[in-house]
């Protein structure tokens, strides 16, 4: 049953082929023995209790939710009441969430069952899941390689068939890059479309929760559940979302796809050729391609590494050893409680970004760095506005290179530059979807991104649908998965 989609699983539950308890027991068993290091905790008691409740609900004849019986895994920076939320940090090792994130409430309202929390780069800062204070996560396609990051655990979980759906968070590409590396779909919605209430904040003007899936229909289904106005998030879009599943007719005839050709210079040749094949397939579906340009995209990485650390240094000021993080045992004065607890609690990458953020916001430097970055961010958004005058959607590779080996990138700047193609969607608040389009010669996944103007999340998904109808890449399973697809 592990390779079934969420839609298929839910249907089998609704037709009483499997009970919720049977489904959840099987997935919990798999989660407890998973070989990828994708998970930080398995919520066995909670999940079994919810499954029993769902079986009772079905017996009583009540209407079942859109995701009834579907196991879901969420990144460990999303709160689930009473459960640990570590953010991949030792600092929050013992933190138990006092309330649930809106996305969790919505999933459970629709009878999904959350079975585990996924590993991540500490406080979502990283592109390989290697900054997790707990353990590394392997790419299910080849365990010598990273799954990407920061939502590497959530991506590896879905690629490795630990669940058909998972949630991550995307501040500069943290859903899309691991989705590309793991050969699955990863979606960053329009800013504000999915509530951030209960997501531990990293950089609030960029953060979005986004889903991972192995099929586009599943992605649309979970998006239907998640994209709702929320009273607890002041940036939540208050108008109701469209029905994404309904938008998936796969008809992209006459759709104009913008291609920023300048992005293709210097990227990995196999990714470039996969991208050209992707465009050819879309043209066969009746779409047109037009050349566009996003001239300020090169500046997205430096803008990001000013704005994101600045926002992070502010957001992470709340972790101080007083209210809910671990407190240093060495501290004797109040001031030492702050300093010692933070020093012991935060890992190296997080410390570096907090200090960098503090620097760019400090007196005398704010105009030169922070304000300058906000202005260039405006230009990046303006480029998109101009480009969307000429096209309906924009497509380019999710990453400039295929997945890399564990430990192969140690220089922070080289790591930061991995995000060159993903950051701009966060800058401009656009919906952006990474689509699995094939494998390299070494059998490592390649992802292509499709972006649209704000609020056109359904359009992006429909491009993926058109591609999915013409190809079978999304059906590929990693060699590490030994399961039987027909059980």
């Amino acid at each position, binding site marked *: 049953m592990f390779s079934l989609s969420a839609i298929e699983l839910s249907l089998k539950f609704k037709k009483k082929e499997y009970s919720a308890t049977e489904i959840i027991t099987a997935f919990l068993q798999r989660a407890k023995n998973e070989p990828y290091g994708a998970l930080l905790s398995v919520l066995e008691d909670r999940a079994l209790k919810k499954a029993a409740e769902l079986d009772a609900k079905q017996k009583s004849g009540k209407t079942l939710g859109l995701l009834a019986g579907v196991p879901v895994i969420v990144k460990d920076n999303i709160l689930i009441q009473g459960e640990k939320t570590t953010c991949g940090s030792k600092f929050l090792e013992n933190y*138990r969430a*006092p*309330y649930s994130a809106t996305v969790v409430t919505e999933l459970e309202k629709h009878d999904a069952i959350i079975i585990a929390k996924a590993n991540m780069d500490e406080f979502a800062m990283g592109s390989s899941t290697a900054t997790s204070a707990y353990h590394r996560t392997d790419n299910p396609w080849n365990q010598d390689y990273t799954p990407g990051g920061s939502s590497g655990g959530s991506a590896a979980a879905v690629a490795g068939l630990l669940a058909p759906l998972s949630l991550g968070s995307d501040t500069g590409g943290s859903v899309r890059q691991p989705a590309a590396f793991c050969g699955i779909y990863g979606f960053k919605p329009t*800013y*504000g479309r999915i509530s951030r209430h209960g997501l531990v904040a990293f950089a609030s003007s960029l953060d979005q929760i986004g889903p991972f899936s192995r099929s586009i229909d599943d992605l649309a289904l979970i998006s239907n559940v998640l994209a709702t106005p929320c*009273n607890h998030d*002041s*940036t*939540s*879009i*208050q108008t109701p979302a469209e029905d994404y599943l309904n938008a998936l007719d796969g008809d992209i005839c006459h759709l104009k796809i913008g291609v920023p050709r300048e992005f293709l210079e210097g990227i990995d040749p196999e990714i470039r050729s996969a991208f050209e094949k992707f465009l050819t397939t879309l043209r066969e579906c009746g779409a047109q391609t037009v050349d566009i340009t996003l001239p*300020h995209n*090169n*500046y997205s*990485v*430096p*803008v990001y*590494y*000013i704005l994101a650390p600045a926002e992070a*240094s502010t957001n992470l000021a709340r972790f*101080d*050893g*007083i*209210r*809910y993080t*671990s*407190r240093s045992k060495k501290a*004797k*004065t*109040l*001031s030492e*409680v*702050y*300093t*010692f607890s*933070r*020093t012991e609690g935060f890992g190296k990458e997080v*410390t570096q970004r*907090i*200090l*960098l953020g*503090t*620097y760019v916001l*400090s007196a005398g430097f704010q105009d*030169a*760095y922070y*304000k*300058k970055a*906000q*202005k*260039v*961010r*405006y*230009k990046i*958004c303006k480029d998109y506005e101009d480009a969307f005058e000429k096209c309906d959607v924009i497509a380019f590779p999710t990453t400039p290179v295929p997945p890399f080996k564990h430990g192969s990138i140690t220089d*922070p*700047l080289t790591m930061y530059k991995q995000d060159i193609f993903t950051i701009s969607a966060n*800058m*401009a*608040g656009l919906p952006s979807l990474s689509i699995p389009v094939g494998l390299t010669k070494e059998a490592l996944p390649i992802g292509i991104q499709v972006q649209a103007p704000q609020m056109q999340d359904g359009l992006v998904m429909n491009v993926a649908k058109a591609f999915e109808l013409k190809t079978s890449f999304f059906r590929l399973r990693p060699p590490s998965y030994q399961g039987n697809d027909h059980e």
Partner: protein
Amino acid sequence: MSTFKEEDLLFLESLARIHVSVKDKDRLIENINRILSFVEMLHEVDTEKTPPLTHIIKGMKAKLDNDEVRDVLSTEEFLKNAPDRIGGFLKVPVVIEEKDGY
């Protein structure tokens, strides 16, 4: 832009309330310097007439809530995560030392 030096780091440590160990200091200063010189490229962009971007969603204003109490976390629930407490309060080390005459 001037180079980021050890005294700058000391100042940041006091602002951010994080102490960087002697063994990590040189590496961190080097990294911050490299990142700062990398972001220097932003100065190539002419932004004289460009406004800073503060809201991403066009036409969206921050939503204001009515001034009413809702979904309040109970003290007990909140204090479950506290590293130290006395009764219904968070406990911290003494802030003002007792002295003669006070």
